[in-house]
């Protein structure tokens, strides 16, 4: 009992109050308010005159000809594909670098570099690189005698361009996390496997992957949350175009907000909120269980 009293005075709970309040007021309350407002007709002209309209906003999202539902689908698609495109090359790159390449420190510095740049800047750089007439990529293609591509306006091309830019930015970041995981695997494991006659792939499946669970988890967690919330890169590169082909949930939501349809925007945000919360609770529960095991 005395110990408990003591702990409370050494580690006072008021240390928690300010950050916790900030988190609640400016993070959680807006998210929950969003759910409440998603059932209303709140818009730029309502001026306090807001009425409940039930599920109308959600029906609008899934039924209207504006095709907001495609934004949801695109968000999910982006989350899956962008992660596959980044994580697999990043893993092999990490293995390659870890096995000793001359100058690996410089390479590490270079590969991570794009991850520190603002997305807006990356978007502008690639808007120039993708430029139809003079961009770096089409210039390169014409040197090789290949036809120029409409990187950002061709429907069959535009998503690939977005994934490409996203990979350009993110591979080094994911690689860095994998590399830290790899450095934690004792070298003797591989030596033992080699003596047993295991080749690269056998040790990859039986040593590398199982020992990398931590790094893979963290990459997936960061990658999935990033994918679901993706905004900047799409907004700057295509602004949802051509047409609405590359619209994601956050770009639709911003449009609705900018046009004053706050209730509808809230409904879209609430769908995202529910999806991310389910994933979040799942992961956090997993983490807390791991902690107990330790």
């Amino acid at each position, binding site marked *: 009992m005395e110990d408990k009293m003591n*702990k409370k005075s050494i580690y006072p709970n008021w240390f928690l109050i300010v*950050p916790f309040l900030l988190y609640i007021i400016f993070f959680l309350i807006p*998210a929950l308010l969003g759910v409440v407002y998603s059932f209303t007709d709140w818009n730029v002209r309502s001026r306090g005159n807001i009425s409940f309209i039930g599920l109308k906003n959600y029906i609008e999202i899934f039924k209207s000809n504006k095709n907001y539902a495609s934004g949801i689908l695109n968000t999910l698609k982006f989350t899956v594909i962008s992660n596959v495109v980044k994580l697999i090359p990043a893993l092999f790159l990490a293995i390659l670098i870890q096995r000793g390449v001359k100058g690996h420190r410089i390479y590490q*510095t270079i590969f991570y570099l794009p991850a520190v740049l603002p997305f807006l800047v990356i978007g502008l750089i690639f808007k120039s690189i993708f430029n139809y007439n003079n961009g770096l990529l089409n210039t390169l293609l014409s040197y090789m005698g290949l036809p120029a591509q409409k990187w950002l306006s061709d429907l069959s091309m535009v998503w690939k361009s977005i994934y490409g830019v996203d990979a350009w930015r993110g591979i080094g970041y994911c690689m860095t996390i994998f590399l830290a995981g790899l450095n934690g695997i004792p070298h003797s494991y591989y030596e033992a496997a080699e003596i047993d006659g295991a080749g690269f792939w056998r040790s990859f499946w039986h040593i590398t992957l199982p020992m990398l669970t931590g790094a893979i988890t963290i990459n997936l967690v960061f990658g999935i949350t990033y994918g*679901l919330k993706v905004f900047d890169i799409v907004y700057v590169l295509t602004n949802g175009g051509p047409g609405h082909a590359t619209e994601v949930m956050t770009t639709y939501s*911003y449009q609705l907000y900018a046009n004053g349809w706050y209730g509808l925007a*809230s409904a879209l945000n609430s769908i995202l909120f529910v999806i991310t*919360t389910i994933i979040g609770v799942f992961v956090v529960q997993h983490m807390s269980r791991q902690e107990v095991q330790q």
Partner: protein
Amino acid sequence: MKRREQSTFFKQFICVALSIIIILPFYMVLINSFKTKGEAARMSITFPTEWVFGNYLEVINRGHLLLGFFNSMLYAVVSTTVGVMLSAMAVFVISRNKTKLNNFVYYFTLCGLFIPVNFVTLSAVLSFLHLSGTRMGIIVTFTSSMIPFCVFTLRNFFSTIPVELDEAAIVDGAGPLRLFFTIIVPLLKPALVTAFILQFMGIWSDFITPLYLANASAQWPMNLAVYNFFGKNGSYWNYVFADIVLTCLPVIIIYLIGQRYIVGGLTSGAVKE
């Protein structure tokens, strides 16, 4: 032996090729930022026929860049300092006094790693508090939204600081505040620096927050100033490229100086199991 040589060559080849893919865009931007309008529009990677250093002066004067730089600095420095310090204090209590309540607060806060900020209703909350359209509103938003990540990354460092130090300090008559700031903070410095650098770069790059919350050009960070400048002067690639260089420079410098902290911080807690 020959196979080993081949594989070494192959590895070097991949690394060099990838480095070129990453560096080339930077080089292209830099070299074109010194060209005339017509030459920059061709976006080639050759040297300029005439070096135009005036592009930089031009964008600084016309593109609200100085004000943008000042705003970005203000947002990044203030909210990062406050956010990291507040998170450290919270984590100090959470990790040292593992009550049920504190554990709940910890995991409850971690959920914020996943939840997106709802800017539509956030702007309503800000206007209720008379903070909408102010720099203060933007700073408070940045501070709050970094708390989950800071709590998450700082948590693991605390186990490396022996509890005996706390007890010794208390026996010497220090209160919790003095204990935290004179004993814990100095020991925690590497972790705090990591969190500070990561968050600083995150805020410098953040685009969506000011897009929603800054309703006058006076509050634009560099990011948004550049975006609006591009909207008006999209065909002046020489200026756009100069803009890009100026916006990137601060984060690249911080990255090169603080690199070892970044890699350490990304991977601490996360990977070691």
